[in-house]
């Protein structure tokens, strides 16, 4: 049915050569004549009132061109949830208070970075220290210090979901269990620290090069915070060295670069250090998860009651979305006839948590998966069987939320069991070795318009030329995940051209069509892919008209683009080359170039997403009984991403996901004391290196997603979910230690052994 020429092939990535040869230009590589270097002064206190700031000494240091504080700005709050302005709680620079160690207080621009650094030390800030709260329990206690005046409870977001008669369902269950899980914060640890360069032209218009996942969101929020018109701001995304959710909001340095460029007339650059990133950067939400599940004797699920507290840090950032999604994901994977969720997003005096690969799902599904394995144990079932019994299938609905279209979950479970020799190993592995399973489901982009965009969710412009080439323009942001390549593949497939025939210009808000919500929620392949196809189809209609006229074809012919030609199906003798067809269509339109725009906005697709990915992963581990050190020996993964447009790119996502999941499960954590992050470098922030990543095998389960471009859905974030629960389950199989609070450390394993 699906005979593709380029889609489904391991096409080398668009950016591979530039990155491998070092010629890729990242934001920090942008150097403009007369450019100034910016630095940020940050709060040394987790919670304090700013009484007074004296910048005079800093401003008079030779070489300093601009010093700014919150007082100099228009004092407009911002945040990504524009649809609910009360959630917008951040200023570019602190106005009244600082709320975490690292909160931005002032900024300096100078002719070189050392002078800027020195100037920071000359800014005198008088603080009145306030008591701080550093975890959810302390923050929601009666009489806890209030972090934002507008929010006396410190609970900034409440989200509830409910369906089915849950009390009745529990009452009728044969087996009910309740568990509490704690999951911790981890860093995106993208290899390119955040950076931005702003330039202001003589008409006062701003151009900002920035390391971002969301050019359009930056354009809008920068306009509102600077009180400028959107069209007077141009955002250009150069090569980006990873984002993982950590670069999807307007940030202080972007604002300050633009503000100071306007003020000084000179370009201004900010580049964060790794220490700043670790000390103050966004991170994955720590959560406290109370989960109660009911079963029938045979393992059939009856009900789930899920209560989650998200430790949001000092500002909302993308916390509201994480609060929604962890609740949605609580109801995924398995069929819960009744379900209740209450999510609460809590302010604490720590660096804000935000979106991070999986966006609430790694936390929520860690609890789901661990609890499924616990229940299996108690009910005397194989963990695989309890999953097979309850697995969601195509056509299942989650009332008021979503209907599952394509779903290869059961196939994935069976496949991963076969690949890993699950049944045999689960019985025969000796003590100290273990095998465990983790599953996932994820969204292919969100449908909830919290940003309140006035444009379609995704857009593409396609221009076709009589030399047989095409130019694709899109605001979609390739941040290393490879959407430039995948979108080119989709267009090349639609036009019957080669990758070399397609030119792409992406993520420049002044040039690429309005608009695109950005690279997050694993949305680009499906949403932007659909926009590209929409544009391609409009062009194809014109090409088909030209071919039809040229060969005087009967109107009932189907026409296709293939192998560089346009011809009636089954009659390749009556073909024009793609370029000839374009030339003819152009003649028909009296020279007008062949250009089309395509759009995609998910409509009538429930509250969450147009389509879900699914998958299962098995980890085999060896645990040193005396030291508690866990070695993962191997991973097996079977997953359903619909059509894998570029299987090699999907495998890249899997490898990166495994590396992240490995760190989440075993080694990465922020060591914090009184709101201060102590491990601010890669020596002590234990991100696994390439040497730590075990071998892995993968099978793509073939499904075809009707809502996706050429059958595709997501493969970006979902894969980051199963690794931690799979490792935790394997560690339990090997040692009997059941982890309910990540990460799994040697000390916890040994303690559990002693306690037994």
């Amino acid at each position, binding site marked *: 049915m699906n005979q593709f020429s380029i889609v489904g092939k391991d096409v080398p990535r668009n950016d591979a050569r530039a990155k491998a040869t070092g010629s890729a230009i990242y934001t920090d590589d942008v150097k403009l004549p007369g450019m100034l270097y910016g630095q940020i002064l940050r709060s040394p206190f987790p919670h304090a009132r700013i009484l007074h700031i004296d910048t005079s000494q800093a401003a008079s240091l030779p070489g300093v061109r601009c010093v700014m504080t919150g007082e100099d700005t228009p004092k407009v709050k911002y945040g990504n949830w524009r649809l609910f302005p009360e959630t917008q709680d951040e200023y570019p620079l602190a106005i009244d208070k600082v709320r975490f160690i690292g909160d931005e207080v002032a900024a300096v621009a100078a002719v070189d970075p050392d002078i800027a650094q020195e100037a920071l030390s000359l800014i005198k800030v008088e603080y009145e220290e306030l008591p701080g709260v550093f975890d959810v329990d302390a923050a929601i206690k009666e009489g806890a210090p209030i972090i934002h005046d507008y929010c006396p409870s410190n609970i900034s977001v409440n989200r509830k979901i409910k369906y089915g008669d849950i009390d009745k369902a529990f009452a009728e269950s044969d087996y009910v269990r309740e568990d509490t899980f704690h999951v911790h914060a981890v860093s995106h640890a993208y290899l390119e620290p955040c950076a931005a360069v702003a330039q202001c032209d003589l008409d006062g218009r701003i151009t900002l090069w920035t390391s971002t996942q969301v050019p359009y969101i930056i354009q809008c929020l920068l306009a509102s915070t600077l009180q400028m018109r959107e069209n007077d701001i141009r955002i250009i995304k150069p090569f980006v060295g990873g984002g993982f959710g950590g670069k999807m909001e307007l940030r202080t340095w972007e604002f300050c670069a633009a503000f100071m460029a306007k003020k000084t007339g000179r370009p201004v650059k900010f580049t964060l250090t790794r220490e700043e990133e670790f000390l103050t950067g966004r991170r994955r939400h720590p959560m406290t998860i109370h989960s109660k599940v009911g079963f029938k004797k045979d393992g059939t699920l009856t009900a789930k009651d899920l209560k989650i507290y998200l430790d949001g840090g000092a500002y909302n950032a993308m916390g509201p979305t994480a609060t929604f999604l962890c609740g949605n994901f609580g109801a995924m994977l398995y069929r819960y006839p009744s379900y209740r969720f209450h999510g609460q997003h809590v302010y604490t005096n720590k660096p804000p948590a935000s979106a991070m690969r999986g966006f609430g799902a790694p936390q929520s599904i860690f609890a789901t998966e661990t609890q499924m394995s616990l229940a299996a144990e108690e009910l005397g079932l194989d963990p695989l069987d309890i999953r097979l019994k309850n697995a969601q299938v195509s056509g299942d609905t989650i009332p008021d939320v979503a209907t599952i279209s394509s779903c290869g979950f059961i196939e994935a479970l069976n496949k991963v069991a076969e690949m890993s020799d699950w049944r045999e190993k689960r019985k025969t592995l000796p003590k100290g070795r273990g095998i465990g399973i983790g599953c996932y489901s994820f969204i292919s982009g969100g449908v909830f318009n919290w940003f309140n965009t006035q444009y379609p969710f995704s857009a593409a412009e396609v221009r076709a030329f009589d030399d047989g080439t095409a130019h694709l323009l899109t605001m979609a942001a390739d941040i290393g995940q490879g959407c430039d390549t995948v979108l080119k593949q989709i267009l090349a497939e639609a036009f019957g051209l080669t990758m070399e025939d397609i030119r792409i210009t992406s993520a420049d808000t002044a040039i690429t069509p309005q608009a695109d919500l950005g690279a997050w929620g694993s949305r680009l392949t499906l949403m932007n892919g659909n926009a590209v196809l929409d544009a391609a189809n409009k062009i194809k209609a014109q090409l088909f008209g030209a071919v039809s006229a040229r060969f005087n074809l009967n109107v009932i012919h189907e026409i296709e683009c293939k192998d560089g030609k346009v011809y009636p199906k089954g009659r390749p003798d009556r073909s024009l080359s793609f370029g000839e067809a374009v030339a003819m269509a152009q003649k028909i339109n009296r020279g007008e170039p062949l250009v089309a725009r395509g759009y995609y906005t998910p409509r009538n697709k429930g509250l969450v997403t147009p389509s879900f990915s699914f998958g299962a992963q098995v980890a085999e581990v060896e645990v040193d009984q005396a030291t508690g050190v866990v070695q993962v020996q191997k991973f097996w993964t079977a997953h359903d991403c619909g059509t894998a447009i570029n299987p090699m790119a999907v495998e890249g996502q899997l490898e990166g996901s495994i590396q992240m999941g490995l760190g989440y499960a075993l*080694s990465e954590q922020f060591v914090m004391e009184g709101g201060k992050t102590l491990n601010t470098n890669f020596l*002590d922030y234990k991100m696994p*290196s390439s040497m730590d990543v075990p071998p892995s095998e993968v099978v793509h389960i073939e499904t075809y997603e009707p809502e996706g471009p050429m059958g595709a859905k997501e493969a970006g974030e979902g894969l980051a979910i199963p690794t931690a629960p799979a490792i935790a389950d394997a560690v339990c199989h090997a040692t009997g230690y059941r982890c309910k609070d990540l990460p799994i*450390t040697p000390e916890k394993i040994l303690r559990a052994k002693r306690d037994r």
Partner: protein
Amino acid sequence: MSLSHFDHYAPATLEEVFSLLQSKGPGARVMAGGTDLLLKIRHGALKPKYIIGLKNIRGLKTISFDASAGLTIGATALLAEVARHPDIVKHYPTIAQAARGTANPQIRNMGTVIGNLCNASPAADNAPTLLAMDAQIRIRGPEGERVLPLDQFFKGPGVTALVPLEIVTAVHVPAPPPNTGTAYLSLSARGKMDCTAVGVATMVTMTGKTCAGVRLFVGACGPVPLRAPKAEDILRGQELTEEVVEKAGTQASAESRPISDMRASGDYRTEMVAVLTRRVLREAHHRALAC
């Protein structure tokens, strides 16, 4: 933070090094591979005005081996060179292993074993084995050379027995007696490439079934790599039965003085000293019997 400003010198002779050290005063600092030094400068912990690179000095890179005189590793011999040197791999396998287990290929191609020692981190991966093998450190100053047992070289975290104007030119490891085995094991939180949270090295010499000589050193569990003399006492003159090895582990653990930090808790370290001590003893014992 950007690098502070300094002048860089790359002299070709030791005489030039000493005259530079003398003329530039306390603002001068010698550098081998710079893999520790530049990080410290970058983080503002050190602000030298002058850096004197040692890598151009002829002869300082030499690794030499003689069956009776033993092994000499020159000050600028790279970790990578030590890791794969055929004589070291053959006659001092644990020294090669420790060098190979340090950092990653890039760092091993820049950094040196001597730099690892001079940096005097309690967690330095090359120290415990060299200590266990009774290495001596060769020190040169404007006045001439002195030789110090390595176990008198470390004075505290980042502090050595070097006095101003002195540099280390080499480390010398005597030829091990017959029927000797060595072993080094370390643990860290991340896995393959990481700063060591606990490390234990030993050298065991057997006469027949009895342990005739033993040296046992623990890294990252005190201000300097620590010797465990009472654990050694338990072993010396004994058959290395499981029971004796078990006891020695417990004793070594009692002799260590680890702190709790980000890398591991003190309790975990203490417990691991016992585990690793037993493991290195078994391994070294096994090797001693095999030769």
